[in-house]
């Protein structure tokens, strides 16, 4: 009898849907807020990473020997060290450095919001990845197109804006799309430094209610939905970017 009761309770705790309700006794609202935080960090970190990536790719391809070697070190370190370790290092080092800088100019310390720190950390990691993706894409642009632009007397900035960037886009989009999906999943690692994104609030909700499976599955559904919705947009974007390309196979 007692055992049956335990099993019944277990089954009940798996499907107690009221725990997911949006208002106070339920944790649905907290989960959605965490999801929103995750998305914000992913978008910010991805955008920062793209900026760093464009700079890094051009530095690696057209920069001087020292620039190239320093960028090589950056991408090598990020690609050889686990994201979790990088996130911890950048999180502490970044906030410390900023506070020391502010202290040096006599502004006193500031409390850096988890959001900004998270965007910074994800952005630096993504920057190395997109450097490599964009470098490969730029190298895939036929050299004659860039030479023709130069022969027309375009300035380097104009060559970049009118020829290199648009021409490399079809080659870069599959890689960049993957990086976006990785950015959304990497935000989960910020749970380890205590930022309340989706994975951490899920764990808190699960710990408070003991309904572990329900909450982790709910969070999984949210992440999966983000991935699937992203995939729809990515598919459309790729189709648009590849218009005018000869279909392979």
């Amino acid at each position, binding site marked *: 009898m007692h055992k049956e009761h335990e099993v019944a309770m277990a089954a009940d705790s798996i499907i107690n849907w009221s725990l997911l309700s949006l208002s106070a006794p339920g944790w649905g609202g907290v989960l959605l807020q965490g999801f929103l935080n995750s998305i914000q960090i992913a978008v910010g970190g991805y955008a920062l990473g793209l900026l760093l990536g464009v700079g890094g790719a051009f530095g690696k391809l057209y920069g001087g020997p020292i620039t190239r070697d320093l960028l090589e070190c950056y991408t090598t370190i990020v690609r050889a*060290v686990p994201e979790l370790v990088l996130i*911890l290092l950048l999180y*502490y080092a970044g906030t410390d450095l900023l506070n020391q800088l502010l202290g040096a100019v006599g502004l006193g310390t500031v409390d850096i919001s988890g959001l900004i720190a998270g965007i910074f950390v994800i952005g630096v990691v993504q920057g190395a*990845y997109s450097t490599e*993706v964009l470098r490969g894409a730029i190298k895939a642009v036929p050299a004659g197109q860039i030479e023709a632009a130069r022969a027309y007397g375009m300035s380097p900035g104009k060559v970049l804006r009118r020829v290199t960037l648009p021409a490399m886009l079809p080659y870069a989009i599959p*890689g960049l799309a993957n990086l976006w999906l990785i950015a959304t*999943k990497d935000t989960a690692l910020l749970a380890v430094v205590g930022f309340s994104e989706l994975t951490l609030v899920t764990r808190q909700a699960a710990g408070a209610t003991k309904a*572990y*499976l329900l909450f982790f599955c709910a969070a999984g559904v949210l992440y999966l939905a983000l991935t699937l919705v992203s995939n729809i947009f990515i598919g459309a974007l790729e189709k648009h970017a590849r218009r005018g390309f000869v279909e392979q196979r």
Partner: protein
Amino acid sequence: MTDETTHALAFTPEDLPNGKSFLKPHRIALILVAVAVIVAVAVLMRWDWLPRYLPRLGWGILVSMVMLFSTSILGFLIAVPLGLIQITGPWYLKGLARIFCTIIRGTPLLLQLWLLYYGLGSLFPQFPAIRQSFLWPYLREAWPYGVAALTISFAAYEGEVMRGAFAGVPAGELEAARAYGMSRWTMFRRIWLPRAIHRALPTLNGETVLQLKSTPLVATITVVDVYAVISKVRQETFLTYEPLLLLALIYMCLTGILVIAFRYFENRIPTRGA
């Protein structure tokens, strides 16, 4: 994930310096600067804790390596049938494999790990049948959940790679095998599988480095790998940067050794032309 993306995420054999033309004047200057930085770090920061923790660090590295190799090998063994049934299987198996890969690749590994450890870990004790089974002593530990999560994740990513690799083997080679009178199994064992692995090898190498980069996540479920040892050091010594810098260095060395080993094996496989 395409080959290029894996290359963008993981350090791979192509990135190793190739000996000749490595030492140029500016490189020598950069190396001197790097040496100066390393000396400054060694002298100015606190490293007196290091000898005390060396044995534990050694164990931690061993645990990380065991995690990496066991899950990569197990994951690969699952990935081969997973890739294969997406090419030749009946529609329902194809669909199941596709759904499995989508779910695993669409959610963060940390979440999967916590789902298995906290979710299943809290569910199992409620069933007396499990509690009395011979598996129970293992299911109370943390590492089986870590191995399971890492294996499943590797299998899902690798399954996609193997699907592409199986599909990419030229049809003529398989037709030739059939014309020789090979049975389906012989053809798979002698031609299809070796050729697919050969095609997938560069991506496999990159994915293994990515797997190494995922192993520290198991420290969040109390498996004592090298990352957990370093966290312990940080708690006990109140140091922030020194242990983390050492940890980054350890992972760079591990990645470097892994990548050099891959290059050695890649060079042993005969290829046509360049």
